[in-house]
Each structure stands twice: as C-alpha cells, then as structure tokens.
C-alpha cells in the first residue's frame, strides 16, 4: 500500500499541494468537473486515490459533483470538490443544502477572472463575496485564503478540520496564481498532523435526534448505514430532522446554523501580522496580494514609514472586532485585493470611521509592491 502522507520537501505547484493536503487530511471522496485553473487538483487525486482506496469520480457537471460530495459526506467519508468561480456558481444551491443539513465538506475555489467565463487562466479574488452571500437564505460560511503553495497544503488540511468540527462546508479560496505557482512544499510526517473528525452520536439509535445540538450548537453526526436510520432534508426541520414550517423552528434552526460559526469567530480566525505594533498605516490583504503587501510594508519601514500588514488567512467569518482593534491606533487603513471592491466593504464597516483607502486590481497580476508602497506614502504625506 502506498503512503498516504508524502512526507518530505518538493518543488510543486499549488493545485498539487492542495490535492496532497486533502489526502493528508483523510479525504476519502472527491468529485469534480474539469475547469481551469483547478483541474490539476482532480488530476493529482485521480492518480493517487485508486492506490489509497479513495473514491474519485468526474461528474457531468459541478452540480452533480457537489451533490455527490454531500452524499459521500453523509456516508461517513471526508469529501471535497475543487472548481473555479463558474463552477461555484453552479454549486451554490447544493452548498446551501450542505449548510442546511450540516454536511462537512470542502469546496476549493481556484479563483479566476470573472464575471462569466472571464479570464480562465488568470488569477483574481473576485469570488470572496460569492462564497459568503451566494447562497439564498441566511448562512454563515468559513473561508480560508492561502498565499503560497505551502499554504495550499496546510490550509486544505485546516479546511477539512474546520468542516468536520463545525459540520459545515468550508471554502478554500485560492486563485490561478497560487494554483499554478511552483514553490517549495514541505509535507510533515503523518504523526505531526492534527486531524479533526466529526463528532459521532453516543446515544443509542432509539434516542438519537439528528439535529439536536448541545451548547456547541454542532449536533453529533451519524452516517448512513450506522443503524441510526435518520432522515435529513433541505426543508426547515426540527431536531428529529422532520420538516416543520413553523416560525419557531425556522427561527431556532437558522439562528443555530449561523451562531455555531458566528460565536466561534475568534476560534476560527487566522491572521498573520507584520510590524503592526506601532503602525500608522495598516495594510489589509489576503492570498497572493498579501505577498506584495508584505514587501511593500517592509520597503515602507526602510523608508521610515510606519506601515504594518494584517494578512487575513481566514476571510469568513469576518473578524470585525479584530479589525477594529488593529486599526485603533492607525491613521488609515489600506485594503489591497484583486477585485473591484469586495472585502474592503467589510473592512470599512469594521474600522468605521477610520479612513480606508482601497487598491483594486483587475486582470491576472497582483498589485506590485511599488503600487502598495505608493499608497502608503500618500497617506503618510
């Protein structure tokens, strides 16, 4: 039997790292439809899974892929799909089903330029709001944004852990630049990995209520075939899982689904800071754009400008309080993202009334450090 965890250091691309991250995390089911720039994840999985006993299937479309991922998740497997923006657009209804029925799963979006078919081979960060607000109804989602090949691996593992812990779909928001980037990747030894598995029911089947949660708000999850004979529906449901159209049940269910994530915002949030202790200009960035921002902040410091970087590693749930606190002593905040204004709205809301300068970027290349440095300089002037 081949090794599951390919411990060691290699020079690989981001999609490859993502696939290996999934395998290391214990992913047992992968379904997808080919799409640039995420296809290489499927190719790697298709190569590796038969040897490991994982189930890979290429679907007729992204809707089928995500629906089957939810089926596999309820069958007891850690399951994922990978796609790009157009694919996520097709998946949204069923991602809502995963939210509603509390199916742990991972959705990788290797973002490309949009809207519509846009720029298939070129990176962008235009789907940040899609994964937060794309589904109908009230939802909370978790999204992580890797900035390197190493993080494509690390955060894929983390995405699985969060999805299992909170019984919810988790997005890995990468982009074409990172998906296709070649860098050094170090995969740890298997025993160094921390892996989380969903909470299983401890009650006998006769007492098990599939949607009754304790104070964690996350109900224990039985799998098909375990003997619990549960029923699950995308309709508003009570603790038994039965459809219930009452106002009370809708209120209770939607609050619990959202609060299980909202209340854990501090626990879920992952950020990295660079010279923020005394900064007067706080730069906020994520993903590939944060790499330019880090260089820009260092260059600013060399020029005596008190700049700092807050890199958001997790984007959703949005860490409002953290932003507010970090911006407290700053004169202004700069947001650099590869779109025409998405996460900047959240930052503005969180740091109000602090002035926020937005640096949009459209079309493949991330901001240059020079562009961000120039913005820092202007604020300082």
């Amino acid at each position, binding site marked *: *039997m*081949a090794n599951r965890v390919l411990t060691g250091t290699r020079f690989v691309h981001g999609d490859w790292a993502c696939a290996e991250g999934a395998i290391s995390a214990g992913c*047992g*089911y992968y*379904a997808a439809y080919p799409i640039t720039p995420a296809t290489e994840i499927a190719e790697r999985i298709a190569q590796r899974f*038969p*040897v490991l*006993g994982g*189930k890979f*299937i290429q*679907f*007729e*479309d992204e*809707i*089928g*892929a995500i*629906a*089957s*991922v*939810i*089926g*596999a*998740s*309820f*069958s*007891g*497997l850690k*399951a994922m799909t990978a796609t790009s923006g157009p694919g996520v657009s097709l998946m949204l*209804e*069923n991602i809502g*089903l995963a939210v509603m*029925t509390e199916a742990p799963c991972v959705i990788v979006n290797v973002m490309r330029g949009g809207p519509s078919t846009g720029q298939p081979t070129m990176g962008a960060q235009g789907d940040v709001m899609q994964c937060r607000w794309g589904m109908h109804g009230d939802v909370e989602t978790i999204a992580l944004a890797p900035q390197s090949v190493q993080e494509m691996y690390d955060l894929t593992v983390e995405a699985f852990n969060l999805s299992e812990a909170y019984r919810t779909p988790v997005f890995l928001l990468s982009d074409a630049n990172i998906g296709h980037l070649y860098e050094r990747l170090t995969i740890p030894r298997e025993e160094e990995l921390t892996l989380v598995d969903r909470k299983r029911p401890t009650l006998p089947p006769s007492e098990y209520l599939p949607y009754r949660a304790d104070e964690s708000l996350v109900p224990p999850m039985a799998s*098909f*075939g*375990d*003997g*619990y*004979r*549960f*029923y*699950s*529906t*995308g*309709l508003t449901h009570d603790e038994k899982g*039965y*459809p219930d159209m009452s106002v009370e049940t809708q209120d209770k269910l939607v609050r619990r689904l959202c609060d299980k994530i909202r209340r854990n915002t501090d626990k879920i949030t992952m950020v990295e800071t660079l010279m923020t202790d005394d900064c007067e200009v706080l730069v906020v960035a994520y993903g590939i754009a944060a790499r330019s921002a880090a260089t820009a902040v260092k260059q600013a410091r060399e020029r005596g400008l008190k700049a700092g970087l807050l890199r958001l590693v997790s984007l959703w749930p949005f860490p409002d309080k953290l932003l507010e606190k970090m911006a407290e002593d700053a004169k202004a905040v700069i947001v650099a993202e590869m779109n025409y204004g998405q996460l900047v709205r959240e930052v503005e809301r969180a740091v109000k009334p602090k002035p926020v300068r937005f640096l949009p970027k459209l079309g493949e290349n991330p901001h240059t450090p020079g562009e961000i440095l120039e913005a820092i300089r202007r604020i300082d002037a």
Partner: protein
Amino acid sequence: MTEEMKHPLSDYLRMDRLPHIWCAGCGLGIILHSYVEAIQELSMDLDKIVTVSGIGCAGRASGYVNTDAFHTTHGRALPFATGISISRPDLKTVVISGDGDLFAIGGNHLIHAARRNVDMLVICSNNFNYGMTGAQYGPTTPLNTRTPTSPYGSIENPFNLVALVASSGATMVSRWTVYHVYHLKNAIKKGLQKKGFSFIEVISPCTTGFGRLNKQTPIEMMRQLRDNTKIMKVHPMEATIDPSTEIIIGDFVDVRKPTYGEILRELEAKAR
C-alpha cells in the same frame, strides 16, 4: 396515528409522520406501500438501505420510510445517491422521485448515472405534470395537453422514459402503474436485489392537479390505468405511451453488466 395501533408496516414506515401529505387518490402512497412491502417480503435489513429523493410531491417519499433517508435539492437525488453508492457499496441505495425531478431539472444526471451503471434502484413516479407547483406541463406531458403553463395545449414532445433510460445503459428497465400493485411490487423486489442501475417507471395519477385539469376523478384515472394498459415484452423503444389510448407496460430490460463500483474496485486492486 395513535401509538397503540400496530400497523403491519409500522417497522418500515415513520408512523409518527402519517397521514402523509399527498392528496386523496395520489398514487405516491401506493408506490410507497409497494416499496416498503417489497423490503418486508425480502426481509432486508432496514439499516442497510438508504432512500433518497429529490423535490416535488414524490420527493417527500423518503421522509416516510424508516431507513436512512435524504431529501435532496431539485433534480439532484441521483448524484447524491451516486455519492452514497460509491462510498458505501454495502448499502442498497434507492431513489424515489418524480418525472420532472429526474428527467427535466435532473435529466443530465439520469443519463449519466445510467451510462456509468451506478448500482442503485430508481423508482420514478410519472404523473405527466409538475404536481406540487400546480399541474404545469413537464417533460412527460402528452402533446396538446392544456396545463396552466400550456393554456393552448402543450407544444412539446414528451420523453419516453423507459426508452431514454434503456438507451443510456440501464441494466433493468420496467414500466408499471399504481393499479398493477403486484407487478409493481415484484419489479421493486427485483430492483432491490439487482446489482446495477435499475429503473422502474410507475405511472401514477396526479388527482388534484392533472386530474382536475382533465376533468377526471381519481377513480376514473385509476380505471384508465387498468383499461388503457397492455402488458408486453417489447424492446423499450417499442414501449409506447399515450395515456389517453394505450400505455405499454412490463419488464423490458434485465441484463447484467459490471457496475461502476465493481469496475472501480477492480481498478483499485490493479493500482495497488
């Protein structure tokens, strides 16, 4: 349903959810009865069956069966079931859904699940319309039928479901009606024991929607299923269907081909 009453099917149904939501005379209750009675007669382990459905009236069927069960999104019962069938080949995966769910919004998944020969039984209730939304025309509505969205008569050609599924690669294909309860139950029993993509179309009256539109009572609709049907052993392409004159019913296909899961397991054995 009171607790003290012991129903002969109470082990197989979620008795606390009865009476079900379906209208008086709706054939879905008969399909459900046939399904659980087939399970009972085969003495199958209820822990090892998963019942999946899509959206619409038929989509509610999964909620009354005392197996693991899942009510998916519209049209997506088959890919959801594919995920189960591949992940847990030890379980019997059954889809119960309607003609609109399986052949309109979910039509692409249907032909591909049949093509792959995914091991599952699909029971399709065909009532010739979209019942739950108010009897609009759908992929099976006969030409010239007046419905709320075809007030001048439907101008679309309907699918012949058994012909479509058979040509897509299904290894068991039958068509029965809810009047033919013994044939239907036997077909379901066969499908439950079959390895491979098995498909049973069940002609079923939509008494409130389609029936009222066509000025037919539930009993008249059932009589029609008795009088206008002909049991024949024909090629699925010849299993014609015209609800107002003649519907060919029967078991049309029963062949054995390697399933997706079996081929995958062979591939895994070789890869190792």
